[in-house]
């Protein structure tokens, strides 16, 4: 994060307006979900406990997860220690001159996969509407699950014109993108997704969404690549299902329009890449951050994020972004921007103590240590 980006963000009224609009849309929806679906709190406890168990022995659980899917036909399984290794594996699978449809995935942002695949000569499309707008603007997502909240209808229309989508209203633009992207789905050689939860018991990949782009991206192409960061491994299908339900409920869009349960099938080659990228090496005080389900509620509710958006942070912005930046070894002075008001911890379904994590990161910055020396 650059200091000038923060000043830019503070002066950019559309960021604040977009985030507050999203807060107005989603805040009450989450509260209603918690009230209506009383099982959510119990699910959150189960998922957190399971995640902590997996973290206690990442090597064993990663091996178990890999074995669960290795034995299946039509599936290749890989392990990547970092982003560079993951990109190399994807490049070997994909090659060049391919049409690639991508589902929105923060882990692919983490390893800058789209940019890399374009550089080596592929046509790559973000298929989520918000993510496509961000791609065309050549910017980073403003929120972990709602990437284009800072763009007005008019700005979105201008950006979408770059790919020939005409219209002025959100409905006209969505219809235009539907037609444009349908052709890409039908022509695509490769589909790429992340993973919300991976069942170490059965090798199934759980992905939750509302638009249907993940379902099309992971179903239509002959080759399907799933990138599974190892923090997504859970012991069973039931826990995976609980996690995707929690993610949708705490974002505010529940029930989700689609829950995808992907696994190797006849007629499609599946490639699953397990990625570490700093997770196993995370210092003790950051382990709790690895229970994060990336619902993005801490971002929307945070008074600092409401001014700066994801420009406060690196790949992951806002309160959750501080912990994740620490895990990825990218933390800088941005951790001093937090007001430590504690709202993030209060609203987090996993009850992650982000203020504590941020205080620890600050101590390290003051001491001049890097995370590897802890």
């Amino acid at each position, binding site marked *: 994060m650059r200091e000038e980006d923060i000043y830019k963000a503070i002066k950019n009224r559309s960021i604040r307006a977009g985030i507050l609009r999203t807060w107005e*849309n989603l805040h009450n929806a989450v509260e209603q979900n918690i009230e209506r679906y009383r099982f959510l709190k119990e699910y959150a406890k189960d998922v957190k406990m399971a995640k902590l168990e997996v973290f206690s022995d990442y090597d064993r659980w990663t091996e178990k997860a890999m074995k669960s899917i290795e034995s299946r036909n039509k599936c290749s399984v890989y392990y990547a220690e970092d982003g560079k290794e993951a990109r190399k594996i994807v490049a070997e699978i994909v090659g060049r001159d391919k049409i690639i449809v991508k589902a929105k995935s923060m882990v692919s942002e983490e390893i800058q996969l789209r940019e890399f695949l374009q550089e080596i000569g592929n046509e790559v499309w973000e298929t989520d509407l918000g993510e496509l707008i961000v791609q065309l603007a050549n910017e980073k997502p403003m929120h972990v699950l*709602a990437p284009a909240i800072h763009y007005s209808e008019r700005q979105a229309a201008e950006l979408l014109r770059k790919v020939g989508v005409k219209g002025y209203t959100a409905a006209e633009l969505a219809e235009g*993108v539907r037609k444009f992207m349908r052709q890409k789905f039908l022509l695509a050689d490769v589909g790429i997704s992340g993973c919300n939860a991976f069942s170490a018991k059965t090798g199934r990949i759980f992905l939750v969404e*509302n638009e249907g782009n993940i379902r099309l991206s992971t*179903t239509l192409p002959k080759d399907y690549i799933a990138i599974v960061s190892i923090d997504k491994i859970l012991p069973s299908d039931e826990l995976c299902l609980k996690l995707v339900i929690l993610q949708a409920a705490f974002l505010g869009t529940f029930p989700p329009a*689609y829950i995808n349960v992907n696994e190797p099938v006849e007629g499609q080659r599946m490639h699953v890449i397990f990625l570490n990228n700093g997770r196993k090496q995370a210092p003790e005080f950051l382990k709790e951050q690895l229970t994060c389900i990336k619902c993005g509620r801490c971002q929307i509710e945070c008074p600092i994020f409401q001014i700066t958006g994801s420009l406060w942070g690196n790949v992951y912005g806002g309160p959750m972004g501080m912990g994740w930046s620490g895990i990825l070894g990218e933390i800088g002075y941005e951790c001093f921007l937090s007001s430590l008001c504690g709202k993030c911890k209060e609203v987090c379904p996993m009850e992650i103590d982000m203020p504590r994590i941020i205080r620890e990161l600050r101590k390290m910055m003051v001491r001049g240590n890097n995370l590897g020396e802890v």
Partner: protein
Amino acid sequence: MPNEVLELLNQLIETLKRNSVEVYISKDAERDVERLKSEDSFICNALSIAADTGIVFFGGFESRKNSALAEHHIAIIRRDAVCKNVIEAYNLAISKSNVIFATSTASKTGDIEGKLIWGMHGPKKFTVVLEISEELYGGIA
């Protein structure tokens, strides 16, 4: 027993309506679905449904593909597929098919200024035809 079943079915119908799903109650789904189908629709039998959330589970890779491409997805749900909650529904679905997927409403997005738009990439409309017996039919609210 019929009272418990009726309560469950009425809860399901209320949930589906809250999820903006078009619901038809039928004594003969195969017959009634003929009136709904068009060249842009895809009809399939659901493996299970959760009454508390309205999440519907389906089976098969081809169904997953065809339902995602259709403009109108029509689901036929029979009484024995109705479960109390999503975990029960998942377990029932996975006992019937190896490849499963779930849908609870039509495709939607709120990515531009938070405005809700139906039919982003998947079906613009999702309809449930709930088949129940003559005995239960009269008890539906």
